[in-house]
């Protein structure tokens, strides 16, 4: 039987990919951020997940405004990273798990999540930076990925409640897969940040820390927020927190926090890292 072994949340800021490419991890600016990750690496090395469900948002690499799916699930044998226009060097392709992808897709649609199915899907920094942070260059066998893409570009965005329920449906889908398989769910993006408008540079530490606490103990209270509430409190791009709620929904009821880190700023953003396991 497939099993969700844990959930991880991490920022996916492009500057992180740049810092990894240039080997800046020990620079004073970067150290407090990268120092958060070794406990997560240790956990990954110990638990050895086979598959990562990576919940992220595309920033205009795979999807343009001509067609924006609210939720899209990858079903490809591999996922290509490409030039996003501002100089981050594309990484080699990431292996997929098409059989489990199709199982998840069938289960989601049966549960009335009418997602878009993608047999080709270019993955941008939203997906690639978390993969690099967690796995690239650590000499482990490559993990198989199932990208789950959430619209955070074109309003109306899916509500926090809907994202939490999508996560629950993903959890149910994984649990009904007959093969033995350890699955980790990654919620990417956030925390508070705003790139555009005269409020650019907005960061809300108090709100972020509340979210990092409640996503462990009381995620439903966060799922009750509106997108408008979230943007007011977390900034225009802080809406990416809905991807954390997908992760949390997939984990189910009681969870245990194994590790966390919070640091301001990385680029224009407050970065949050969490490692959660289902409570025994």
């Amino acid at each position, binding site marked *: 039987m497939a099993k969700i072994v844990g959930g991880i949340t991490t920022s996916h800021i492009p*500057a992180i990919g740049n810092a990894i490419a240039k080997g800046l991890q020990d620079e004073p600016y970067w150290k407090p951020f990268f120092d958060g990750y070794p406990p997560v690496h240790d956990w990954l090395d110990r638990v050895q997940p086979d598959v990562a469900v990576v919940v992220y948002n595309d920033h205009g690499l795979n999807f343009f405004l001509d067609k924006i799916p609210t939720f899209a699930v990858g079903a490809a044998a591999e996922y290509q990273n490409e030039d996003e226009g501002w100089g981050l060097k594309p990484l080699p392709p990431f292996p997929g798990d098409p059989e489990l992808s199709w199982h998840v897709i069938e289960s989601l649609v049966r549960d009335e999540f009418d997602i878009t199915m993608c047999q080709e899907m270019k993955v941008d920094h939203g997906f690639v930076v978390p993969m690099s942070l967690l796995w690239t260059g650590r000499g482990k066998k490559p993990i198989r990925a199932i990208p789950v893409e959430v619209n955070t570009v074109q309003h109306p965005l899916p509500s926090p409640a809907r994202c939490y329920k999508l996560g629950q449906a993903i959890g149910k889908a994984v649990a009904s897969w007959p093969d033995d398989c350890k699955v980790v769910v990654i919620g990417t993006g956030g925390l508070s940040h705003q790139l*555009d408008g005269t409020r650019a540079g907005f960061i809300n530490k108090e709100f972020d820390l509340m979210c990092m606490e409640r996503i462990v103990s009381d995620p439903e209270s966060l799922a009750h927020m509106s997108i408008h509430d979230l943007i007011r409190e977390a900034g225009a791009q802080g809406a990416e927190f809905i991807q954390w709620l997908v992760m949390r929904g997939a984990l189910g009821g009681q969870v245990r926090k194994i590790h966390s880190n919070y640091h301001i700023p990385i680029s224009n953003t407050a970065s949050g890292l969490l490692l959660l396991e289902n409570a025994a």
Partner: protein
Amino acid sequence: MSAVAEKHEEQDIPGTVMFDGHQSMKGYALNKMCYSFNQAENREEFKRDEDAYCRKYGLNEQQREAIRKRNVLDLIEAGGNIYYLAKFAGILGLGVQDIGAQQTGMSLEEFNAKLEAAGK
């Protein structure tokens, strides 16, 4: 006031433009041009003759002027979405702190200090 306008009024967050259907229709040509900057050959074509490239994508006068001025707030006002505009900023060698400073009327140092201060 129409129901839609009323809704926009009550949802207004200071300093924040929601990229909704109205903005997206307004900015479609501009964002489509910026989306094309994912390809290096398109970035080169733009650099060779910026205005010709803007016209090829059907940008209106307001959008072409905002591109000429490299003015991010004007580009947003003209319907630009920040994720696509970031690709334009990339051509100019500007990062998100540079465009943050420009939009808030701060120097880069002041903007970076504001980000640092948020962590205190």
